[in-house]
């Protein structure tokens, strides 16, 4: 039965200035609501209120983080920008990698939905980041997922892990994008708040860079992809004065859960469709519909152009009956994109959409006015200056205060913790710990082969894919964050995260080029959390300046907490690297050459605060993180790249969580080749095996190259030490004078943990 619904128009709003509006329920503060009235010179309509409230939310407006994020721009020099084709402010930064190729990459969080509904939450996280990359005109070429879950043995972790991994696999595998890496970390601080971050890399010819613009009066606005339904509307539903029983397509209006449902097949054809229209040169601008749906897409497109925009909202193809204009604007239905197309290209555009069976509808046009005007069956429901919605949101100066507990945390060092007598047992206990165990249970559920260009993937330090089949040019990407280090010292911890991701890219033989981040923190209303946030931002930005590579974009996720307890501060850092020929990538496994020497590059200090050993053996977190020396990291990176270029290194692995022995065991197990580890008689074996000092890597060099390589290290001032030999015949790993293990024993220990917990 058809229902008449009062539509709140701009004319109605002008007539009824005193109408009581539910702005507080939509998350707007008194002064924010007053400002909207001031901008418009009247009260907002229901649809306008919906747009402002969602676009001025923390998620869309970065209102708490903005004042701190400015620091990234302030610390980026012209020299660091030389390879940047687009930077922060666009959907994702774009970097020139040479041979006429440009690469874009971004990490986004989908934390809260993934706790409520792990499968769909994680799946739609993949979908969203992929559309972000497409909005730059790039073909998505690889994905990776930094994941953090509650304690591995905690009751609810199994549900969340299984759902998230299944969701990422289900969605990502259907898109035909290789999953090349990511992270898997368990910590009880994530018990009620997992972190599901998704990274996507895209590539394009430099000349195809398409920014989200809506220039050119008369150009058409086309919405294409899935239909719009009631999903993800969340807070806006308070605007609806009535609710009904029934499902979405009947006359009733069932409230859908706030987590959206993804359809990877629709996304896959949307990808192909987008790439075809971009290749054909028939789009002026292109924009994804993610959080805040059409509210975001129309206001951002319009404010990026040079005119206004008119949208006939009733033309939007709907999946649900009786949706109000506010709901259509706020819907977060997945798999939708918006394009601006010149009138003469509209037919060609629609033909491509028809070929791929993608629904496409002209919903409006670029005008020569100043405002974004949205009509509903001929009546104006929105008439706003688009910048005020998209960019001029509120900016908060939240209180920042170093927590009083920080001193006590740093004073409680690991020095008093009892150290083990039985190192053999400790090696096995560490190897089986959930954070150090093999991640195959997760990564075997993802397709790493599709597109045929993957040359490195988990368990390698970085994921590497070929971009140009003729020249062999490729990119590499790694993400890292040891949130325990960040908790102990947010500034140093963030620099350590950057250092590790940088090192991981270099370990594959690629040159680090650019940084993106996903900053996961607790509530910004907590001054202690804001202090962690500010320090971490400064740590990453200062670190990037030292390394000479720019931050090209990022994402902030606040309110990650259970009750009043925040997660460990987790600024995930992603580093993108380039390699001119993927054929010279360095694998992580030993045994590819006969007769290799293992060298430890860097210096090992007695650093155990925040280490994996302190967690596994004592459940301890306190003290100060290891020192990060970025000049040193840069030198180490240069040596690794030089070693790869001159064929001096046959395998390399970063030394981080679990220390030297964890790195060597992984190199042996990946390469299925035995080795003998030689320790320095002048240093405590426990420290040598398990300390987590930064700036270190283990490399395998063919014996014929050993002298040349070590002389290069010495000449450039990088400390090195011969730490073992590869022993292909032995089938075992021997730590001389300490213990011996068969590779079978190590493999079983390493591989058993995750299947035991989650199968």
């Amino acid at each position, binding site marked *: 039965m058809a229902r008449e619904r009062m539509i709140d128009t701009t004319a109605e709003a002008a007539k009824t200035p005193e109408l009581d509006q539910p702005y507080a329920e939509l998350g707007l503060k008194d002064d924010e609501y007053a400002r909207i009235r001031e901008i418009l010179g009247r009260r907002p309509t229901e649809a306008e209120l919906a747009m402002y409230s969602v676009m001025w939310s923390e998620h869309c407006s970065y209102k708490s983080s903005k004042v701190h994020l400015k620091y990234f721009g302030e610390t980026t020099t012209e020299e660091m920008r030389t390879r940047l084709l687009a930077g922060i402010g666009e959907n994702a930064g774009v970097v020139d990698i040479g041979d006429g190729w440009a690469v874009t990459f971004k990490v986004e969080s989908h934390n809260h939905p993934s706790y409520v509904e792990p499968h769909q939450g994680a799946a739609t996280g993949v979908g969203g980041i992929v559309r972000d990359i497409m909005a730059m005109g790039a073909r998505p070429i690889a994905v990776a997922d930094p994941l953090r879950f509650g304690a591995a043995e905690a009751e609810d972790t199994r549900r969340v892990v299984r759902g998230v991994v299944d969701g990422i*696999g289900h969605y990502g595998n259907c898109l035909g994008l290789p999953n090349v890496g990511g992270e898997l970390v368990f910590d009880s601080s994530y018990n009620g708040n997992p972190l599901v971050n998704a990274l996507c890399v895209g590539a394009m010819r430099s000349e195809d860079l398409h920014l989200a613009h809506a220039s050119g009066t008369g150009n058409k606005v086309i919405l294409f992809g899935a239909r719009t339904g009631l999903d993800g509307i969340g807070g806006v539903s308070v605007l609806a004065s009535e609710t009904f029983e029934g499902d979405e397509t009947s006359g009733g209006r069932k409230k859908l859960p706030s987590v959206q449902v993804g359809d990877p097949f629709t996304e896959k054809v949307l990808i192909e469709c987008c790439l075809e229209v971009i290749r054909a040169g028939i789009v002026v601008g292109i924009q994804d519909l993610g959080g805040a749906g059409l509210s975001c897409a129309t206001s951002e497109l319009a404010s990026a152009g040079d005119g206004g925009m008119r949208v006939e909202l009733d033309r939007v193809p709907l999946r649900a009956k009786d949706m109000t204009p506010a709901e259509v604007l706020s819907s977060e239905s997945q798999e939708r994109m918006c394009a601006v197309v010149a009138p003469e290209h509209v037919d060609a555009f629609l033909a491509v959409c028809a070929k791929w069976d993608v629904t496409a509808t002209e919903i409006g046009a670029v005008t020569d006015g100043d405002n974004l005007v949205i009509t509903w069956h001929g009546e104006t429901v929105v008439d706003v200056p688009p910048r005020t919605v998209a960019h001029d949101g509120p900016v908060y100066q939240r209180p920042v205060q170093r927590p009083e507990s920080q001193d006590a945390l740093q004073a409680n060092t690991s020095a008093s913790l009892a150290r083990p007598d039985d190192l053999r047992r400790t090696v096995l206990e560490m190897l089986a710990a959930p954070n150090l165990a093999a991640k195959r249970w997760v990564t075997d559920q993802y397709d790493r082969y599709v597109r045929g260009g993957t040359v490195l993937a988990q368990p390698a330090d970085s994921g590497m894919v070929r971009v140009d089949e003729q020249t062999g040019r490729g990119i590499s990407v790694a993400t890292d964050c040891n949130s325990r280090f960040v908790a102990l010292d947010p500034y140093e911890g963030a620099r350590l995260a950057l250092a590790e991701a940088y090192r991981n890219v270099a370990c594959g033989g690629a040159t680090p080029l650019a940084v993106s981040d996903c900053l996961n923190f607790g509530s910004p209303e907590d001054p202690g959390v804001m202090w962690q946030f500010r320090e971490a931002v400064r740590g990453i930005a200062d670190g990037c300046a030292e390394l000479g590579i720019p931050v090209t974009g990022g994402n902030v996720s606040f309110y990650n907490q259970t009750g009043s307890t925040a997660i460990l501060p987790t600024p995930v850092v992603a580093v993108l690297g380039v390699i001119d020929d993927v054929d010279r990538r360095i694998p992580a496994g030993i045994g590819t050459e006969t007769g290799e020497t293992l060298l430890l590059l860097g210096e090992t200090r007695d650093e155990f605060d925040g280490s994996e050993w302190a967690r596994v053996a004592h459940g301890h977190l306190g003290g100060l993180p290891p020192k990060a020396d970025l000049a040193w990291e840069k030198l180490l990176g240069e040596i690794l790249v030089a070693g790869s270029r001159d064929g001096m290194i046959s395998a390399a692995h970063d030394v981080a969580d679990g220390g030297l022995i964890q790195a060597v065991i992984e190199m042996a197990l990946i390469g299925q080749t035995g080795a003998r580890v030689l320790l320095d008689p002048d240093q405590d074996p426990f420290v040598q095996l398990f300390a987590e000092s930064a700036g270190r890597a283990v490399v395998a060099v063919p014996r014929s190259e050993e002298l040349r390589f070590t002389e290069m290290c010495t000449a450039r001032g990088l400390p090195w030490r011969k730490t073992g030999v590869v022993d292909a015949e032995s089938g075992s790993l021997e730590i001389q004078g300490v213990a011996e293990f068969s590779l079978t024993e190590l493999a079983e220990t390493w591989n058993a943990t995750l299947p035991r917990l989650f199968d």
Partner: protein
Amino acid sequence: MRIGVITFPGSLDDGDVVRAVRRCEAEAVPLWHGDAELHGVDAVVVPGGFSYGDYLRCGAIARFAPVMGPVLEAAAGGMPVLGICNGFQILCEAGLLPGALTRNAGLHYVCRDQWLRVENTRTAWSTRYEPGAEILVPIKHGEGNYQADKETIAALEAENRIVFRYIEENPNGSRADIAGICSANGRVLGLMPHPEHAIDPLTGPSDDGLGMFYSALDSLVKVTNE
């Protein structure tokens, strides 16, 4: 030699098959799911992916695609046809091969490097292998658990139509460790593993997959010469 590679909406490994065909110096001809003819190709590959999203049963919609009509006709005439992963599922649904692929025994999607034994080297797609050769090829699927009734399995065994078998570990619960089977005349082959991802040790675990494409080219040369 012209080898057609079909793209359905949702196909994923079509580009990878094209690369593999070109590596063997044959011509790869893209075929669209809506095509009513095969554009004069000498062989057809139905690649992996999720045709039309595979929301019903894998391959159940794709078998009705316009391009499948001429594929069935060509197969009846002896044209070599290879179905990889989703392609195998489609060939089973289309009736070119017996049996069905069901959910993996562990219920998880599995992506890993898998050892196979070549059991029959007399099909259009396997003559380049030594009898009993062990090859390393990636698998990546959620529904690769081959099932058929006892009589069918017995017939496949008796007629030597099990072309590839999983060795070391059965990754999905397939009956008789079946990784790939062929038609009675040995011209149509379906397998779950991905030979197109084993053409170069740089991007795959080996180049063992090339043998399948070279075999097809050999068989075509023989047909042409006869």
